């Protein structure tokens, strides 16, 4: 088990190191570390005692690494901040109260996964249609589908708010899920269409000659071949939806608020200035679900995004 998890990160694969050489591997590791640094800094901040967040120079490490790091760069890790995410006193002397973040996390997970899955189901079927049974002016329709993503969200949001007001969808799960689904659809259709386009038509012809109906060809023959594509589309869609802020801010109600919106409010409420360690703790928790999904789909993901270039 340990081996396979390490393997996912490319450790223990001698061949990988052989191909690139240690020098280049090291260079990439340095760049990757710089890339990861902001995330690492936030994760560390989440574990810092409240007062440490704004120290200059900052504390950098939870451990002195056997005396390698001078003491004034070392902080004493605490889990206090994570507790405060869900329950803390809102006034200087008040008793701790629930912050509602458990609800917000549920909302984020529910809304993001529902809309991404829904978009994946509808979008994959649509993509197969666009790929295999092209309409007259197929490209025009594909173009129109993409136009929803061509404008900045801030522009699109105005008519959407008006539409939602009229039909009474503001603040409901249904409304926000529908909106995210619609937005993910464009991406899903384009992405999945290119995966279906890559498949050999002969294989489908063979399946039909072997007695399969159109539906069976799709489910038994085509779908298993694009699992990598489904995984890639799912992860990208999830990341986009998970982090979406503007629509959620303007269209979710108190009960359907997602974490990015709640985070914003947690920062600006209380009148004590920004509580950076609390914010870092929320962000760290917020990172976990997407990180886990991406991690477990990683093997599929890598195959998915390199499909056309490597597979042939």
């Amino acid at each position, binding site marked *: 088990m340990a081996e396979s998890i390490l393997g996912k990160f490319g450790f223990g694969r001698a061949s990988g190191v052989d191909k690139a050489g240690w020098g280049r591997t090291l260079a990439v590791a340095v760049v990757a570390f710089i890339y990861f640094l902001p995330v690492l800094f936030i994760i560390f901040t989440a574990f810092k005692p409240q007062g440490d967040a704004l120290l200059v120079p900052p504390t950098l490490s939870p451990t002195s690494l056997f005396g390698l790091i001078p003491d004034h760069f070392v902080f004493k890790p605490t889990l206090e901040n994570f507790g405060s995410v869900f329950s803390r006193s809102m006034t200087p002397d008040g008793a701790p109260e629930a912050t509602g973040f458990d609800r917000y996390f549920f909302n984020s997970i529910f809304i993001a996964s529902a809309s991404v899955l829904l978009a994946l189901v509808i979008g994959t079927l649509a993509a197969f249609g666009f790929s295999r049974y092209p309409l007259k002016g197929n490209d025009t329709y594909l173009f129109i589908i993409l136009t929803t993503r061509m404008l900045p969200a801030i522009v699109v949001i105005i008519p959407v708010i008006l539409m939602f007001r009229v039909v009474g969808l503001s603040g409901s799960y249904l409304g926000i899920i529908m909106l995210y689904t619609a937005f993910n659809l464009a991406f899903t259709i384009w992405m999945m269409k290119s995966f279906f386009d890559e498949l050999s038509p*002969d294989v489908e012809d063979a*399946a039909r000659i*072997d007695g399969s109906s159109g539906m069976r060809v799709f489910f038994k023959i085509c779908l298993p071949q694009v699992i990598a594509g489904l995984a890639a589309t799912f992860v990208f869609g999830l990341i986009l939806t998970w982090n979406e802020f503007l629509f959620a801010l303007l269209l979710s109600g108190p009960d359907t608020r997602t974490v990015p919106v709640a985070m914003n409010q947690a920062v600006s409420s209380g009148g004590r200035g920004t509580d950076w360690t609390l914010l870092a703790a929320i962000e760290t928790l917020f990172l976990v679900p997407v990180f886990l999904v991406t991690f477990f789909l990683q093997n599929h993901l890598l195959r998915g995004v390199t499909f056309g270039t490597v597979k042939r």
Partner: protein
Amino acid sequence: MSTIELRKVTKRFGSFTAVKDVDLSVAAGEVVCLLGPSGCGKTTTLRVIAGLESVTDGEVVIAGKVMNNLPPEKRDIAMVFQFYALYPSASIGENIAFPLYHDGISRAERTARVNRVAAILHLEHVLDRLPNQISEGEKQRAAMARAIVRDPNCFLFDEPLSRLDVELRQSMRGQIKEVLQGLSKATVIVTHDQLEALTMADRIAIMKDGLIEQVGSPHEVFAKPANAFVASFIGTPQMNLLEADLKTFADGTAEMAVAGINLAIRTDAAVARLQPGKVTIGVRPRAFTATDTGDRGTISARAELIEPMGAETLIHARTAAGADIRVVVTRSQRVKVGEALNLRPDPRQTHVFDGAGKAVRS
């Protein structure tokens, strides 16, 4: 009965006619090869039989039933594709079993059938592997196994051997022929390789530009080509086709000018029907005898290029008027570049084609 019949089948893609008025019937147990250069419509014809393309005009009759409007899954046929078209995400065993899921066959029966065809085609050891984990030859056999695991109306093969190397191709050719002989189904094989067609087919249909030029046994299309195209397409090295000017014909001998030389050649008696004028003379490279002295029945030419082919030697010769002639002689006959040759065509193997390219034969 396992038969295939095409009645005046035409297939058009927009304004392009891929297949034109094709009539073809394949009897039960008969193997017919569709042979022709690329783009001649042979694969389209096959796909029309399979139902993967609709017909524009005419009728496709399989097992006595008109199938024009039936989708491929309802036609009960088996097809082997050029690139095998194995299901990439299923094991070889599952691939072979796939056609059986629709016939309401029990799991035990399914396994038994898969094992039986796997044994025939030597695939037992790869049944658990995925298509991308086996060799080209094994893929070919797996595609074949998937086709014969069922008891379909007929078999269709699209360039079945084109992806194999020469050695494998020879052994697979024999293997396919053997398997097909045991099945007594109507079979259509599409190929551009004449050797494949000549060795595997009971009859060959030679196609060009969407039309069938000739249908006949391998012997017939080789010995009695219906026209100049078939004559040049069948046989290696290619038949020599020489422009000639027919003057007179008497007593089985035609007086004609071939490449500027006046010749008297014995030909088929039907040449008597022709008016004097332009004709084409077809002589296979092996139908010449090189003689020491020239006379009115020989073509004189000079050896330009010698290609030893093992048992025989191919000589590229050129006449004084610049016509190229290919001659095959036995290995023992030593010819040097630049040597003058007197070539006497074998009268029984000399074909005359009229001005439109049609064979003139009684």
